[in-house]
């Protein structure tokens, strides 16, 4: 429904260019052309300006200037949107003409809110988009930054403008609880006027400050200027502003400091996403309070009763447990209960974990030096840290996934007559074995982490690898299990869930899979070492390739298994 509303909005915009009154149509076309020209001019002149600064000034000073400039540009956008954002959100959320129509349509209020939020975001940021984007593009072009910079630049821009928009929306929604939206608009217009006056006064002050500063700067050395600029502009409070996280992410990406980039990028995107979710969550409670005219009030009454009904259902859901593991996913709950009540199966599953942990501490030295005796491209401890837990996971998985279907034993008829698609049954089995395998692999990886201390980045990367490996290996094991299950009454299903051939095949395919899986990891890490890629580049490539490998395996093996399971007869 949201996409339909957005599509309709785009269509309306497009029709404004083609079918509106000639006067309005001409105005729109001229406005668009002017925007394009402004965009191009800023792009051209900012590129020349950046080149000029980097060409004439010391690189360190130029970097300092751009670091601070970006901070302040983003700060100005941020503060400006907070103020304008309240007025914009008031108008778009409560006073726009299409709201009455939207409220009479069978659309969820949450969808209306999200649609209106996107409208507010665009209304708040399109002007900055035209002005700031060309500057940021020039910043990337002049420094010959990799292509990855440009999508990051767009994400950072959206995150930076979405935060004050969210604040504006939240303040706007809170304000209309106290004041009528029309009155709130007038009050905000007055505050906006005061803010404009403040900006004008500031510009007068800065101009005089600049006039006095110019002769002084001429007589100063580069280092002095750098220290002066830093002292004047690099205020400690800046780093707590979300806008600074946005500008820093671009600056550090430009500077090649990927660690700082990762930190700032995560902060800005996470804050932005959190605030958007907060807005959506809060809108469910307070968005409707500002609806004031008759149709809006009628919609509010409907909303209140719908909300009361929803709350009643939530209460019931709480009473009857969580919904994540209901329906077909209850198979996972059932299997977990059965496994944890069967001491022998439990021991089979966790034995490799205990065995390998013991083996490791008995045989491996904990004092492996950084590169070992052999000159690997990676420290030996990293290789052990990454791959030893995978082997443990694989052996644990041998005892789970292969027996997922076989473990159903003589109760297999229950699943066979259930009205659940076979693929869904297999999916639950794969999820179950992945959960247990990831659990065991993660335990040993965390132990290794404290032994080798490879760094948090490697721990996160290692845990993602374990998840991916467990998923892929579970797909293989579960599929083998469907082809070679043991259901014979004469042969206890507890003792022998997967046939001997199945067990052997499972082992062989596990070894082949780990070769492929580890091959991708080692190959890309080797390439990264050769090409001097940072981990921020090589890790995502590895993860993407492993996901592709798993998806190929999943689609081939699961479809074969579905075919096999559907044709499997329950004879006993």
């Amino acid at each position, binding site marked *: 429904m949201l996409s339909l509303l957005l599509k309709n909005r785009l269509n309306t915009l497009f029709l404004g260019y083609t079918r509106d009154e000639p006067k309005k149509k001409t105005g729109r076309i001229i406005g668009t052309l002017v925007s394009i020209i402004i965009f191009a001019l800023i792009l051209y002149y900012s590129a020349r300006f950046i080149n000029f600064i980097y060409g004439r000034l010391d690189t360190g000073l130029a970097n300092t200037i751009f670091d601070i400039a970006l901070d302040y540009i983003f700060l100005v956008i941020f503060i400006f949107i907070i103020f304008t954002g309240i007025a914009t959100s008031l108008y778009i959320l409560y006073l726009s003409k299409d709201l009455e129509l939207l409220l009479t349509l069978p659309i969820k209020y949450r969808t209306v809110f999200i649609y209106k939020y996107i409208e507010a975001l665009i209304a708040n940021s399109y002007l900055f988009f035209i002005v700031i984007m060309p500057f940021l593009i020039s910043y990337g072009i002049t420094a010959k930054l990799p292509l990855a910079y440009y999508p990051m630049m767009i994400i950072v821009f959206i995150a930076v403008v979405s935060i004050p928009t969210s604040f504006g929306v939240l303040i706007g929604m809170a304000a209309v609880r106290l004041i009528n939206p029309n009155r709130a608009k007038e009050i905000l217009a007055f505050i906006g006027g005061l803010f404009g006056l403040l900006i004008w006064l500031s510009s007068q002050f800065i101009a005089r400050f600049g006039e006095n500063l110019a002769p002084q700067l001429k007589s100063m050395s580069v280092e002095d200027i750098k220290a002066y600029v830093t002292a004047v502009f690099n205020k400690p409070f800046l780093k707590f502003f979300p806008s600074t996280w946005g500008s820093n992410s671009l600056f550090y990406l430009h500077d090649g400091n990927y660690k700082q980039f990762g930190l700032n990028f995560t902060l800005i995107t996470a804050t932005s996403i959190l605030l958007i979710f907060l807005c959506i969550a809060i809108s469910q409670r307070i968005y409707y309070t500002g609806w004031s005219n008759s149709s809006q009030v009628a919609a509010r009454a409907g909303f209140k009763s719908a909300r009361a009904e929803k709350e009643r259902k939530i209460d*019931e*859901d709480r009473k*009857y*447990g969580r*919904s994540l593991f*209901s*329906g*077909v*996913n*209850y*198979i996972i*709950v*059932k299997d977990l*209960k*059965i496994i944890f*009540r*069967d001491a022998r199966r439990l021991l089979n599953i966790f034995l490799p974990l205990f065995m390998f942990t013991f083996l490791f501490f008995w045989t491996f030295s904990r004092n492996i030096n950084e590169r070992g005796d052999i000159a690997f491209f990676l420290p030996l401890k990293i290789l052990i840290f990454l791959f030893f837990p995978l082997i443990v996971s694989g052996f644990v998985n041998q005892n789970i996934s292969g027996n997922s279907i076989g473990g159903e034993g*003589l*109760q297999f*008829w*229950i*699943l*066979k*007559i*259930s*009205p*659940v*698609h076979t693929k869904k049954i297999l999916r639950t089995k794969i999820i179950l074995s992945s959960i247990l395998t990831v659990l065991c692999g993660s335990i040993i990886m965390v132990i290794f982490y404290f032994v080798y201390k490879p760094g948090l980045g490697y721990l996160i990367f290692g845990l993602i690898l374990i998840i991916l490996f467990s998923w892929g290996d579970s797909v293989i094991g579960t599929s083998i299990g469907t082809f070679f299950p043991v259901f014979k009454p004469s042969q206890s299903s507890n003792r022998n869930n997967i046939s001997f051939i199945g067990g052997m095949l499972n082992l062989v395919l596990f070894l082949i899979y780990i070769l492929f899986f580890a091959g991708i990891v080692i190959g890309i890490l080797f390439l990264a070492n050769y090409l001097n890629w940072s981990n921020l580049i090589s890790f995502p490539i590895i993860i993407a390739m492993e996901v592709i490998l798993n998806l190929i395996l999943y689609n081939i093996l699961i479809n074969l298994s579905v075919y096999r399971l*559907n*044709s499997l*007869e*329950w*004879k006993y």
Partner: protein
Amino acid sequence: MADNSIAIETFNLTKKYGSLAAVNNLNLKIKSGEIFGFLGPNGAGKTTTIKLMTGLLKPTAGTVKIMGNDIQEDPLGAKKNFGLIPEEPRIYEKLTGIEFLRFMGNIFAMDRKEIEGKIKELLKVFDLTGRGEELIQSYSHGMKQKMAIAGALIHSPKVLFFDEPTVGLDPKSARVIKDIMRFRAKSGVCIFMSTHILEIAERMCDRVGIINNGELIAVGNMDELRKVSKEKEGNLEEIFLQLTGEEEDIDIIKSLT
């Protein structure tokens, strides 16, 4: 509320193992609200027929439709509509009774509130209220059978398959099963029951089908069965023995003694 729609329909249903035809060209139409008894000597093909009807086995030829849904072409549509109570109550022994019923309710995509309500109701009906929290492995054979039946009933199916429903049950539980069958049939549920206990079939079933060596040799109500057999006044046992040729065996046994 009984209606006349066809609940189970088989068309030339055949299952062969090599040259042996376990079920051969079986054609049946059973209406909603009908209790249908399926009789036959050991190895005649009764359980195989039920397995074919419920999708546990694939037919060599022919089709089965449950409430109009072909079990091979639209298995999910067909499976939503029936419950199966097999001869041996092979259910998850490491689950408690309540957990098993919850599992059954979930795989039939029931609402959680409805599941909990049904669990209470079924445990009460089967006199298992105090035992629901115990592991099924601690249950007696009869209790396991009752739990299997409760599991099949939880989603209120429109068709119920009973394979020897009263085997291993105490008289009270057997009576409960019979009452459930009658009650469900009155509310429009089709009951397909294979049994060796001819008295139950005679007393409860609206129609009876007799299978021997995979062939359906007779089908109808008591009057119709009497017409096709020589036993014009006989009860179901006499008709059954006459139709399946086991009367001759009894004569041989008598001559031996």
